[in-house]
């Protein structure tokens, strides 16, 4: 709704950037239609951000969020009733639509701007650049909002009482895991259940392991299938994941519980008394599913999912993000994207919580919590940043075969078989 939580001109926000937009545009009477995956609370936050665009330019913003965004946007774009902008949670889908001519490229110069203004700018440009209908690469996607994946959540209190220390390396993490088992506890909570999308949390694990066992170039090759899915390197990464998930002693409920426990329920084990587990690897959004009243920093905290000390791969970070793409251009749309580039648009959400950004020009003070700021730091300190591979793979793989393959793997199939199956599937779509 239109209620603005922060008065214009007050606080640590970059109000200058707001004023620039306000001065440059007068769009009264125009509308920007946007659809995206944010619903519920996130939609409310986004609406608040957008309301500043309205107050600056006079243009109305209609954002509607949908749980089945991926399906909805394809239908509406194909049938010619697409909104002006779409917020894609996965570059893969955007690339698909770009190749079908359903997206309009961003204004010239956007690529340069991103390169200059985003941390690790080139990688964001690459992630937003796809082949159009004619096979020419164009920049279609502007990233706004980043999720950080390489986090392990824990209860500081439980750690404290048990005297556990935050592991700095993967080796230490494995030792800690064994130690917890020795002391009669269960170290991990892992849940792959997510209805039709069951299995996706496991893909994150595998991607993390890829980044921690192989060079980033290998990761990139894997994403594009230059390196086959059944490459021994990939299989090794899968088995690294299996070392955690397929060990009955390591996971709450035993290995068989992994596949069908809802990912939204799985973190609650951290907070039960006695604890059902001590560790939970999941992206930055997961606190939304912690029990009511859980205070970040106090009752729950995170640490970086560490890298192997004996591999010289630095501190790789896995992330994901949403991007804006034009599905139906208009004057107001162009203006809106300008607004999205402005630091204020990022700060306004940072101040509401649950938002990370790669925009270098924002004022970190506007992060509402320390923990977010800390995540921001992880992002900033990353030596390697890679985007979620499954989001980049073709839908049938990244949002299909990969998911189900991982479920098969956790329920007993061998990594080779699973990887081979996925590769076969990949072969059929080329």
């Amino acid at each position, binding site marked *: 709704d239109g209620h603005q939580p922060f008065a214009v001109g007050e606080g640590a926000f970059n109000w200058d950037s707001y004023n620039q937009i306000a001065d440059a545009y007068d769009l009264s009477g125009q509308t920007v*239609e946007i659809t995206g995956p944010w619903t519920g*609370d996130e939609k409310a936050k986004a609406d608040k951000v957008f309301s500043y665009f309205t107050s600056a330019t006079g243009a109305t913003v*209609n954002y509607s*969020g949908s749980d089945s965004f991926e399906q*909805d946007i394809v239908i509406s774009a194909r*049938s*010619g009733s697409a*909104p002006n902008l779409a917020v894609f949670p996965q570059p893969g889908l955007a690339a698909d639509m770009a190749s079908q001519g359903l997206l309009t490229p961003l204004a010239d110069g956007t690529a340069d701007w991103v390169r200059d203004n985003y941390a690790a700018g080139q990688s964001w440009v690459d992630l937003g650049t796809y082949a159009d209908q004619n096979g020419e690469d164009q920049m279609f996607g502007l990233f706004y909002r980043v999720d950080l994946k390489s986090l392990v959540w824990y209860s500081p209190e439980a750690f404290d009482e048990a005297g556990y220390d935050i592991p700095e390396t993967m080796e230490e993490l494995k030792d800690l895991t064994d130690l917890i088992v020795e002391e009669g506890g269960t170290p991990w909570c892992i849940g792959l259940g997510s*209805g039709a999308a069951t299995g996706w949390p496991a893909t994150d694990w595998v991607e993390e392991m890829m980044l921690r066992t192989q060079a980033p170039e290998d990761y990139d090759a894997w994403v594009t299938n230059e390196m086959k899915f059944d490459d021994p390197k990939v299989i090794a990464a899968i088995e690294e994941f299996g070392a955690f998930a397929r060990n009955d002693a390591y996971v709450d409920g035993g290995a068989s519980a992994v596949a069908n426990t809802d990912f939204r329920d799985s973190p609650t084990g951290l907070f039960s008394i006695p604890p059902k587990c001590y560790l939970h690897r999941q992206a930055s959004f997961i606190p939304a*599913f912690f029990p009511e009243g859980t205070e970040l920093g106090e009752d729950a905290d995170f640490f970086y999912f560490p890298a192997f000390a004996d591999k010289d791969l630095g501190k790789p970070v896995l992330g994901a993000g949403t991007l804006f793409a034009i599905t139906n251009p208009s004057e107001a749309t162009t203006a809106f994207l300008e607004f999205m580039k402005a630091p204020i648009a990022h700060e306004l959400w940072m101040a509401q919580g649950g938002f990370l950004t790669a925009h270098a020009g924002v004022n970190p003070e506007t992060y509402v919590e320390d923990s977010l700021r800390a995540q921001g730091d992880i992002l900033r300190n990353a030596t390697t940043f890679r985007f979620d591979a499954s989001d980049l793979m073709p839908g049938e793989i990244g949002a299909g075969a990969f998911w189900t393959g991982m479920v098969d793997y956790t329920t007993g199939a061998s990594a080779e078989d699973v990887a081979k199956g996925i590769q076969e599937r990949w072969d059929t779509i080329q």
Partner: protein
Amino acid sequence: MDNIAGTKPALTWAVNLSVIFLVVLWLIPTVGLLVSSFRDRDQISASGWWLSPFAVEQNFQAKIPAGEVRQDGAFFVIEGNIFSGGEGEVIRFGGARSNPTAAAAGETAELTRDRSLTVQENGDFVYRSPAEIKRDPSVYYSTATPPDFSLDNYQTILFSNNMDIAFINTLTVTIPATIIPILIAAFAAYALAWMDFAGRGLLIAVVVGLLVVPLQLALVPLLQFHNKIGIGQSFLGIWMAHTGFGLPLAIYLLRNYMVGLPRDIIESAKVDGATDFQVFTKIVLPLSFPALASFAIFQFLWTWNDLLVAKVFLPSNAESWVMTVKIADDLLGSRGGDWGILASAAFISIAVPLIVFFTMQRYLVRGLLAGSVK
């Protein structure tokens, strides 16, 4: 039939008992959902719904503010009440999260590093530590929590913004989307059942075949079509879409019912001078009430619970949301795992269809055709 003499009571009993058994079998899952709809998410994942009416022993954590530490010899001591003055009854307690029920109330639990903890039933505790107390210690205890039901989930749904509009929108979609296909289908069914023309068998086959067309295939071309003719995403569009999608089943059900009507009655009406139109409206339609009512129930249910068609054919702004969209995208959205809300949503959306079912059930009458022919 109800008048038949000497129905055996044993048989009646057996019938009653089997029905009770079936009803219970059918009801158990739903009862689970109903009960869960009154509980919050944490409770739902803490204990089974069948235990919810009973008090359960649950473990809690109480933080002890380290403020008023008292020195007692070599020990640092904190005293107080874990309920901080409130009511409560401790059953067991412990000093470590990993062993929250180490000792019974009133006993003293020896903790690591020579610390000890005593908690009375009423929550009074004494915490003793040989070392200085740096961090607020926690006491873990178990207590019987009484069953906790609330209407919160329902409140969340019913009083969330614009739920009234969504409700009205849903009705706006469902009512025409129920009536119009029935009407069109009834005519077609009559033609397929009682009119003689070439290609009738083929048409029937086509209708049966179309029953199986997956909706998803049709969405894009249809929305394209609607955009082309200028309907776009609108209520008119969704009515038409539901009509199209509902027709095969409607025609199929109605036709099958109508062919069962006695031929003599229809012929008699024709001899009485009725045109086909009149035969249809005055004879066939009234006599087909059971089939019309059955189909109305199903079409209503289907449109009422539909999410996909609503999302595709209605504009995506909040003013046009129907309840399913509202619940799926707005209320559940980021809270996909909130079973309590899901459960209450399921129950709220069940209410109207059940009312429809009850009202329509009256038309599923016996002996509608009795006395008409020998």
